[in-house]
C-alpha cells in the first residue's frame, strides 16, 4: 500500500479498528426507540450486547415483540432480548397517582402513499422476528451482568427506568459496573405527558430518581434537547433516499411525527418532529450532536400531585453535588447526518458483501 494513502487512511482506520463500544439498550419500542435500536445495531462503532424491554409507550409484551421486530428489520436475530418490568416500581399502588393523561398527545397518525402510519402504534408495522425473547427478566440480567467482572457497560435507556431502578434497589453496587447511562427523559422547560412531566420519567418517577442518584456517569437527553433537534421534511427526504428498510422506516416515522406534531403539539419550527430516543444513540456515535450540555444536580419528583415525575434541576448558586450531564440542545442537521452516515455505510457494506459473495 502506498505510504501517502496509508497516511490519509490512518485516522479512519483507527476508528474502524477501535474496539466497538459495548452498549445495552433499554427500550419501550416505540417507533423512536426502534430507530435508536436500528441505528445502534447498524453502527460498526457500537456493539449491542443485549436489549432490555420495559413498559411505556405500550405494554411490555408489545414493546418486547416490537423490539424483536426492529432488530429483525436490520437482519439481526442474535442479540438477546430480556423482557423487563410490566409496570412501575410502586406508582400504581396508589390509585390517586393514576392521573389521567390526554391520549392524543402521544398517538398521532399520518398518511404516506395512502397507507396510515401511526406515531406510536402498539404493534410496529414490521415483519415478525423468528427470534424469541430470553426467559430471564431484564432486572435479573442486569444484576448478573453488572456484578460480574466483565467490561463495563454503557446503557442507553429510552423508556421508563423501571428495570434499572429495580436492579439498583436490589444491589446499588452495580453502578460500579456501568460506564455511562444515556437517558432520554425529563424536560427542563418542556414537558409532554403532564404540565410538569415528560412521559418516561412520569411513568416511573421512583425508578428515575433511583437511577439519577445511583452514582454512575449519566448523560440526560431531555425533551428540550430532543425538541431542539426536531427533523425537517428535507431531513426526511434525505433519509428516505437511502432506501434501506431502516432508512424507510425512519423516514416514515419522521413523516408521521411531523404531521402529528403539527396537529397536536406544534413546535417552534413548523413542520418538524423530534425523534427523541434516536438522539441518545446519535450522541454515542458523535457527542458533538449535543450542543448544550452542562453538569447539573438533578432528581425526579416522586410526590403524588401536580409535579409528579418532574425533572427537578437544582438551579441555586449553592446547588447540590452534580450527578449528571444535562443536555438541553442538539443539532438537527448533525443528527440527520449521523443517521444518514450509519444507514449509508450499512448499505454499502451490505452491497460490498453481496459483491464479495457473488465473486
Amino acid at each position: 500500500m502506498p505510504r501517502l494513502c496509508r497516511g490519509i487512511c490512518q485516522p479512519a482506520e483507527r476508528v474502524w479498528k477501535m474496539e466497538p463500544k459495548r452498549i445495552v439498550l433499554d427500550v419501550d419500542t416505540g417507533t423512536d426507540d426502534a430507530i435508536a435500536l436500528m441505528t445502534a445495531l447498524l453502527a460498526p462503532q457500537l456493539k449491542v450486547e443485549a436489549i432490555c424491554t420495559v413498559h411505556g409507550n405500550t405494554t411490555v409484551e408489545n414493546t418486547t415483540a416490537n423490539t424483536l421486530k426492529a432488530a429483525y428489520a436490520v437482519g439481526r436475530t442474535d442479540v438477546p432480548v430480556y423482557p423487563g418490568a410490566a409496570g412501575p416500581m410502586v406508582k400504581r399502588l396508589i390509585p390517586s397517582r393514576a392521573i389521567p393523561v390526554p391520549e392524543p398527545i402521544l398517538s398521532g397518525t399520518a398518511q404516506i402513499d395512502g397507507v396510515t402510519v401511526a406515531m406510536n402504534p402498539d404493534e410496529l408495522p414490521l415483519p415478525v422476528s423468528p427470534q424469541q425473547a430470553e426467559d430471564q427478566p431484564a432486572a435479573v440480567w442486569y444484576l448478573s451482568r453488572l456484578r460480574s467482572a466483565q467490561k463495563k457497560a454503557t446503557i442507553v435507556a429510552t423508556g421508563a427506568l423501571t428495570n434499572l431502578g429495580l436492579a439498583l434497589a436490589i444491589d446499588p453496587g452495580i453502578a460500579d459496573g456501568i460506564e455511562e447511562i444515556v437517558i432520554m427523559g425529563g424536560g427542563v422547560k418542556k414537558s409532554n405527558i403532564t404540565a410538569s412531566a415528560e412521559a418516561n420519567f412520569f411513568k416511573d418517577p421512583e425508578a428515575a430518581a433511583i437511577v439519577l442518584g445511583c452514582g454512575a456517569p449519566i448523560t440526560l437527553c431531555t425533551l428540550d434537547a430532543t425538541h431542539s433537534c426536531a427533523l425537517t421534511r428535507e431531513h426526511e427526504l434525505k433519509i428516505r433516499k437511502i432506501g434501506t428498510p431502516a432508512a424507510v422506516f425512519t423516514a416514515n416515522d419522521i413523516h408521521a411525527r411531523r404531521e402529528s406534531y403539527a396537529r397536536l403539539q406544534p413546535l417552534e419550527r413548523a413542520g418538524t418532529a423530534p425523534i427523541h430516543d434516536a438522539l441518545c444513540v446519535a450522541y454515542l456515535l458523535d457527542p458533538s450532536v449535543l450542543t448544550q450540555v452542562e453538569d447539573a444536580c438533578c432528581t425526579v419528583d416522586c410526590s403524588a400531585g401536580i409535579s409528579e415525575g418532574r425533572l427537578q434541576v437544582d438551579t441555586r448558586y449553592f446547588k447540590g453535588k452534580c450527578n449528571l450531564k444535562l443536555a438541553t440542545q442538539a443539532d438537527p442537521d448533525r443528527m440527520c447526518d449521523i443517521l444518514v452516515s450509519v444507514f449509508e455505510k450499512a448499505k454499502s457494506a451490505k452491497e460490498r458483501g453481496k459483491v464479495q459473495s457473488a465473486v
Partner: protein
Amino acid sequence: MRKIILDVDTGSDDAVAIMAAILSPDIQLEAVCSVDGNKDIDKTTENTLRVVQLLGSDVPVYRGCRAPLVKFLCPDRLPRRGESKPIVKDGKVIQMHADYLDIPAAEIKEQPISAPEFYVQYLRQATEPVTIVAVGPLTNVAMALMMDGTVMDKIEEIVIMGGGYNITNVTPTAEFNIWHDPEAAQFIVHCGAKVTLVPLDATHAACITLDDCERFRKLGTVSGDFAAALCEQRIAVHDDSQPLAVPHAAAVHDALCIAYLIDPTVLKDVREVHCDIGFRDFSEGQTILDPRYYTEEKNCRFAFDGDRFKFVDILCDLFARDKKSGR
C-alpha cells in the same frame, strides 16, 4: 346556660342537631355557621336557614367556607368516591342527605359577614367562654383559629362530630367530616383547646330506631315530626348500605353532640387519647389513635360508646318543648 356556636353542613342529621340546640333550655345558641360538606355551601346554607326559619328562631346564620383548606388544590386528592346507588322507596328517591330539606324555602337571610370572620369577631369580644360544636368539616373553625390565635382562651370546648376508630364510612379508614378536610381537623385536634371527638363509634352506638321515630311523632310538634321524617330517611339508607347492630336504626351523628352538652353521660367510654389525622393516600382523613404503652402526648377526648336510650330521651324532651304544633 352554656353558650354555643354550631357549625353545620345541613344535612339531615345536622337539621336534627340545629333543632335540638334551638329548643334546649340549657343551651344559648349564639349563631349557626354553614360549611361545605355533605352538600355544597349554597345548599348547606339554604338548608340551615330553612331549619332556623321552621322553628321560628332568630339565631343568626353565617355562610362559611366553600371548600376545604387545601385538599382540592392537589389533583390526586380530589374526591373519587363511586356514586352510591340511589335508593327508591315508594317511588321516591331516598338519600342520606337530600339536596334541599323538604320544608319551606328560606325567607330569612344569612348575615352579611362570613363564618370565619364572625368567629374571630365574636371570640374577640366574648366576655364568657363559648363552646364550638362542629358537626361538619372543620374548615371554618380552623380558618378562624388560624386568623387569630389569641382568642383560644375564650373557647371552653370544641365538640366535634367526626372520625371513627372501629367504624368508618367514606373509605376503609375515614369518616366523612374529617376526610373532607383533614388539614383543618389536624389543626383543630392540636390547637390546644379542650377537644372532644364524637366519632362513629359513639354515634353508631347511639342509634335511633323506627320505634324512636314513632315517639318523636307522638309529640305532635313541628320539630318532632320533622326529626322523625329525617330519621326515617336515614334508616332506609342505613338498612340498605350500612346496617347497624340494632335493626332498622340509623346513626343521627350530629345531634349526639348537642345531647352531650345537655347531658355528658350520653357519651360512654370517653378516653383521653393522642390523635393525629392522616393526610394522604389510603390514610387520608383517618383519626389515628396511639395505642402504644409509650403513647405520644394526649391531645383530645374520644368517645368510644354512646347511650341510645338516654339520647332518645333527651331529644324527646327537647322536641316536646317546641311551641309549634305539627300536622
